[in-house]
């Protein structure tokens, strides 16, 4: 094998390796693009699901207590809402009713008549009959 052939083979090998590297790079970038598209698709699905109220966790179809296995310690400490609903806690202001101060009107109360309670008639208890006298002859 002369030197020219050797050089030619090396050059071909280098060219093939470079082509392989380029192809691998293109494949990698394609995979990354597909992965990002996949992520974006899933993100969109979950977003739409949540926005339309059909979320499995938040929506009306969610089974009651589906995420009630336990309450996050941290959220419990920070006073977050429980796991039963992911809805942010909305604190509705209590309607404040204006106090109406009614003018005091003096009403004359009628005098309270004392009820007269008649004492119940207590019947005298009957006197006990004398015990019969027992004699030795009887």
């Amino acid at each position, binding site marked *: 094998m002369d030197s020219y052939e050797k050089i030619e083979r090396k050059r071909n090998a280098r060219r093939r390796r470079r082509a*392989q590297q380029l*192809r*691998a790079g293109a*494949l*990698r970038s394609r*995979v*990354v693009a597909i*992965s990002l598209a*996949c*992520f*974006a698709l*899933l*993100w969109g*699905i*979950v*977003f739409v699901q*949540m*926005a*339309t*109220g059909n*979320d*499995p*966790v*938040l929506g009306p179809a969610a089974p009651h207590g589906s*995420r009630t*296995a*336990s*309450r*996050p*310690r*941290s*959220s*419990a400490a*920070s006073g*977050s*809402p429980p*796991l039963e609903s*992911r809805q*942010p806690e909305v604190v509705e202001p209590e309607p404040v009713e204006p106090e109406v101060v009614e003018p005091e009107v003096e009403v004359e109360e009628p005098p309270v008549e004392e009820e007269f309670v008649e004492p119940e008639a207590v019947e005298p208890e009957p006197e006990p009959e004398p015990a019969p006298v027992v004699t030795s002859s009887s």
Partner: protein
Amino acid sequence: MNVAPHLFWITSRAAGGAALLLASASVGLGLMMGSKRKTENKRDFRAVHEALSLTALAMVALHGLSLLGDAWLNPGLGGIAIPFVGAYRPLWTGLGIVAGYGLAGLGISYYFRNRIGAARWRRAHRLTAVFWLLAIVHTIGAGSDAAQVWFLLISGALVVPAALLLALRWLARIGGAGESPQRFPMAASSAPPAR
């Protein structure tokens, strides 16, 4: 419904789903590469397998880290990093964390293959399937969308084929030492050839 407070939560869910899909594709491709079937584009397969694995790991990281921003769940760093410590479904999330660590460790170990030793690395790399199965268990146990038809359809398209390939591989291993590995061509070899 006002979605703004839940953007981190949505991001985490989407990243988790994407991670499962990408990991499934990567496992399936890895199992196909392990076959002794002659393919001229094994190097292309390897490049795709590597890219799928790395993007899956990136999605796993995003899945966990985005939960840190969720004011409602508020798991804290310990909740997303230490298995079985978080307050929300500790078993299922713990399994997910273990799966994430396993996949990350085995995936990154590829770049230390020369130090570890090719044979040892191949044996360890087989455990990837176990961690992938753990990730599926985590999805079923803790996933909010696990029962949704759209999610089952999308994930089934990638998880089921990979699971079938894995089952064939394990069946071939169990069935035998005596039988010809050509019976299950894609299960003949355990790991992709070293680069």
